[in-house]
């Protein structure tokens, strides 16, 4: 009995003593923390993905409050979170374009030639160290999925062909995978942009063809005046650079790519064609619509009947023929 009572009393004294010490010290060593930091931390997604550059969501909140980071740098949070943060801080929301990661390489195991069979550590960086990777192309995806491993949102998968596939619904555009890829194959583009270049090989023609069947040859067909009247595609260091305005503006150029190096993730409705109206552009050697159409198989000139023959299954819906046709046979 004495043991129980005295233990309780002594531990009680200890508790009160230490509690009082701590209570006193917490006043002496009180640190004023900006209450906005806590408020902002609460509305952040809390994934701690690090896409903004800060190590975690709390550090991001600190950075935003101190002005080192902008409210829009939180890609997973998007516009909503940016607006809320701006409301707390009382500053204006900057414009925020939702981004999505895409793999700028289509050279999977089937398309790209391999120099040798790699059997080492299954890691892109490790594979790269061994004589510059096992793929003959010195620029493309190595296929060991460092981007898959780094993605906090499980938005990237490797397909059977050994290429990463980004699920645009899960991707938040945080950009972690961009930094994880040792070959810099992945880039961020606007979520609305459905057409992009699926190749990062800046070399030209023959040397690209020797290593990959879908590589960009650097021919510049997509960027020439006929296919790209808007000037949205510019050739730079052997690769086309797209300044995105609308998908329709780059579609003709992309569809004309001889090596199909463009990824076109958009389908516009095919145009309607009334063949009876066509007069084959009598005064011209070739009907104007056949000349302008970016797809070879879509509009073909039938020399015997002097008519343009249209196959809607090949139509990409670029609507270039609508303006060109003198008799308005296209709708």
């Amino acid at each position, binding site marked *: 009995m*004495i043991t129980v009572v005295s233990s309780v009393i002594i531990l009680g004294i*200890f508790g009160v003593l230490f509690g009082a010490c701590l209570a006193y*010290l917490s006043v002496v*060593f009180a640190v004023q923390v900006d209450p906005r930091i806590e408020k902002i931390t609460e509305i952040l997604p809390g994934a701690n993905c690090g896409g903004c550059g800060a190590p975690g969501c709390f550090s991001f909140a600190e950075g935003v409050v101190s002005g080192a980071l902008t409210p829009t740098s939180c890609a997973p949070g998007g516009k909503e979170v940016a607006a809320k943060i701006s409301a707390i801080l009382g500053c204006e929301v900057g414009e925020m374009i939702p981004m999505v990661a895409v793999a700028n390489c289509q050279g999977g195991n089937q398309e790209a030639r391999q120099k040798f069979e790699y059997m080492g550590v299954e890691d892109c960086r490790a594979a790269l160290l061994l004589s510059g990777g096992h793929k003959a192309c010195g620029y493309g995806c190595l296929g060991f999925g460092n981007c898959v491993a780094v993605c906090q949102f499980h938005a990237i998968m490797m397909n059977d062909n050994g290429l990463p596939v980004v699920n645009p619904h899960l991707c938040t555009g945080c950009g972690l995978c961009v930094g994880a890829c040792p070959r810099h194959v992945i880039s961020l583009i606007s979520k609305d942009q459905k057409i992009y270049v699926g190749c990062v090989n800046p070399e030209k023609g023959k040397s690209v063809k020797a290593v990959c069947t879908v590589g960009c040859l650097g021919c510049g067909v997509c960027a020439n005046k006929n296919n790209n009247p808007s000037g949205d595609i510019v050739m730079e260091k052997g690769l086309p650079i797209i300044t995105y305005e609308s998908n329709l503006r780059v579609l003709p150029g992309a569809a004309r790519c001889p090596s199909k190096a463009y990824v076109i993730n958009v389908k516009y409705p095919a145009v309607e064609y009334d063949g009876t109206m066509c007069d084959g552009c009598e005064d011209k050697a070739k009907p104007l619509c056949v000349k302008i159409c970016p797809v070879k198989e879509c509009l073909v000139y039938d020399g015997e009947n002097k008519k343009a023959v249209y196959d809607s299954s090949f139509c990409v819906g670029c609507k270039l023929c609508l303006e060109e046709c003198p008799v308005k046979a296209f709708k």
Partner: protein
Amino acid sequence: MEIKVLFMIIIYSVLIQNFVLSRFLGLCPFFGCSQRISSAIGMGCAITFVMALASAITWIVYTYLLDPATSIVGFFTEGNGAPDLRFLRTISFILVIAVLVQFIEMFLQKKVPSLYRALGIFLPLMATNCAILGVAVLNVEGFTAIGIHTKLTFIQSVTQGVAGGAGFLLILILMAGLREKMELVTIPESMKGVPIACVTGGLMALAFMGFSGLSF
């Protein structure tokens, strides 16, 4: 003599009776914080820091609070069935360490913000670490391996705290180095992560058994 005892305490705490590999204390940070060398160093330094301070504070609490309390109770009961209240050391040490960690955190945040940021999350994790409670209890139990059967002196306690922490830091860095290498090799699916870390830890413990052959 005293210097020799301190030296032996250091050698025993770091190598022969290492807190992780021989006494199996502090296994949670050993497995939890050994994925990266950088975080292992952070955790190891924080543990060393808190272990040294906790050794000092718990020794004072034991000597100047628990010991007198026993004699006070003995005085009131006039020696009739007076309990030895030193059995309360474990629970009071837990209390002391929790308070100490809280205090260190507050102190660093206010006075040394750079160190506070460097230690970061590791400091609060320390509040319930068994290696720290272990060193506090071992300090008052004596060091039988080197022939000390009574409570260690204050200097010896702090030495054991620092050396124990240094041993912990050493093991944590070694383990983190091994695990960083292990991430790059092909491991059977069922062994990935903690299982292979446990096997590695066991092999390290076996290797460290070799130090038990050291004699002075």
